[in-house]
């Protein structure tokens, strides 16, 4: 569900919580809202499910004004996850996840199957947790249940307000990976609030930086990192932003086809492409154009898989002082190559 904000403002008494928001949230992508405390992130989220009513402007979901949709119905179609204490303490894990399906009068069997499916999706052992109460779970487990609950009725849109903010760093990384995996499978439109830039870079397809209720910059993650509009954005990004980006972005985003495949190197003294991949029925190694020019052929064995991080690929390149690497799937399928210039230029 794409969402469009047109001149949206919200005033509490005389003070703007958000002011003149004009932006569009892409369908089936993760959009991250980031900014200092009190800058209007939560307000923006709550304007969408109408926990807060805007003072002026228009919000369109699928091109339709949110005022035209019944409030209760709208909310049941939107998953909502908040930090920490969002679970109902008097309900078991099962009942917590089943809330919206029950409101929608799903048959019992369907609910049961759905709950089990969702617990698997968030990597929880359903037999272990399904009858537990929130107080019996760890913080990380609770947050997983929170995510599962938000997904229960298969909403197209997910609003997540600092969902992992109270979780320790190690478990936060794990939960982020869980979310990315879910997103890969389910392709939801996700609006994710955080104040952790690392989290924003890791999760966000796009990032909107807020300050004092206004959007300072809204761009794809890579564009934001490459072209911060002002000092404020630079400060938010911090010194590790580029490195973080390379750490989280996957090799698959940089695959090129500038290679040839051969099953023998016996009579090679010249190649047209950058890289020659030697392949019989599995990956045997590769030869670089530059390695031939030097008069002798050097066969190298390194490679990366598409789901490795670009930082890992760079590491290997630096180690061997080379400018490209083959990208090979775990089942030995050749995906292409990844080039140093492309990473640095992009």
């Amino acid at each position: 569900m794409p969402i469009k904000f047109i001149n949206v403002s919200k005033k509490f008494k005389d003070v703007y919580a958000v002011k003149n928001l004009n932006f569009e949230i892409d369908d089936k992508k993760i959009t991250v809202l980031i900014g200092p405390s009190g800058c209007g992130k939560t307000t923006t989220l709550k304007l969408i499910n109408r926990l807060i009513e805007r003072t002026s402007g228009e919000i369109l979901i699928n091109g339709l004004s949110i005022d035209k949709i019944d409030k209760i119905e709208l909310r049941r179609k939107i998953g909502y996850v908040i930090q920490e204490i969002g679970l109902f303490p008097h309900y078991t894990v099962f009942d917590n996840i089943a809330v919206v399906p029950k409101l929608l009068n799903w048959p019992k069997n369907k609910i049961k199957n759905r709950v089990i499916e969702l617990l698997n999706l968030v990597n929880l052992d359903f037999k272990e947790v399904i009858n537990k109460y929130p107080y019996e779970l760890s913080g990380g487990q609770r947050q997983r249940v929170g995510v599962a609950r938000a997904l229960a009725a298969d909403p197209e849109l997910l609003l997540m307000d600092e969902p992992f903010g109270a979780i320790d760093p190690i478990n936060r990384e794990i939960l982020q990976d869980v979310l990315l995996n879910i997103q890969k499978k389910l392709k939801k439109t996700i609006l994710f609030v955080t104040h952790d830039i690392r989290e924003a870079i890791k999760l966000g397809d796009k990032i909107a930086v807020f300050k004092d209720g206004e959007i300072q910059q809204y761009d794809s993650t890579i564009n934001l990192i490459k072209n911060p509009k002002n000092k404020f954005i630079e400060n938010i990004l911090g010194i590790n932003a580029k490195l973080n980006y390379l750490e989280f972005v996957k090799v698959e985003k940089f695959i090129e086809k500038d290679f040839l495949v051969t099953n023998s190197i016996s009579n090679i003294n010249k190649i047209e492409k950058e890289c020659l991949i030697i392949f019989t029925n599995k990956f045997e190694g590769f030869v670089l154009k530059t390695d031939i020019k030097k008069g002798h052929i050097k066969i190298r064995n390194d490679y990366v898989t598409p789901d490795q991080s670009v930082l890992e690929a760079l590491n290997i390149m630096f180690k061997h002082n080379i400018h490209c690497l083959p990208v090979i799937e775990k089942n030995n399928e050749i995906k292409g190559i990844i080039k140093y210039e492309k990473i640095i230029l992009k």
Partner: protein
Amino acid sequence: MNLFDYLFNNYQIVLQRTSEHIIVFLISWSASVLIGLLIGILITREKMQKYTNFVLTLSSIAQSIPSVAIIALVFLFFGIGKLTAIFSLFIYSLVPVIFNTASGIINIDKTIIEVAEGMGMSKKEILFKVELLIALPTIFSGIRNSAVINIATATVAAVIGGGGLGVIIFTGLAHYNVSIIFAGVLPVSILAITIDSILAILEKKLVSKGLLYEEGKL
């Protein structure tokens, strides 16, 4: 003279006074539970929330007024009789139900209510599936408190025509007769303990196990 003399020799009278006592209790107490819950819920609704604290303060003050004072006041307006007794008992045991219902609901973490709203629960669904269930332990302690207070105060209400076991006790007091006093005190105590135990069992059945551990916020 044996402590049990009067009880054994006049058990029919004692039984009759006991059943009077139970009837007066049941009528006045169930009315106060019903109306107390209703008022407690009403004053915590969104539109009434500006009055919630006022009512809570008022009812906590009312709780410290001695029962005799209430009985005397109601007596002044309505005169002697069973209805007067029932009415004053109703008023007196109403207060803890209102207080606990309202404070139980008002003390629920606001984010939980907001999440419920955000998930698309209607006001009614939030009341019955979230607010009342989470406030249930507090509500129950109000209801139990109200029952015990009611049974005890019903004894005093005998002086304005309420009947019941208070009649036996006051007779015993007037004659300095321990055996008669005992014949009133014993059943009234058993009654209070029994009712409270029944309510305790009910509470255990109805209150979610998830609320038993209030170790910090969940």
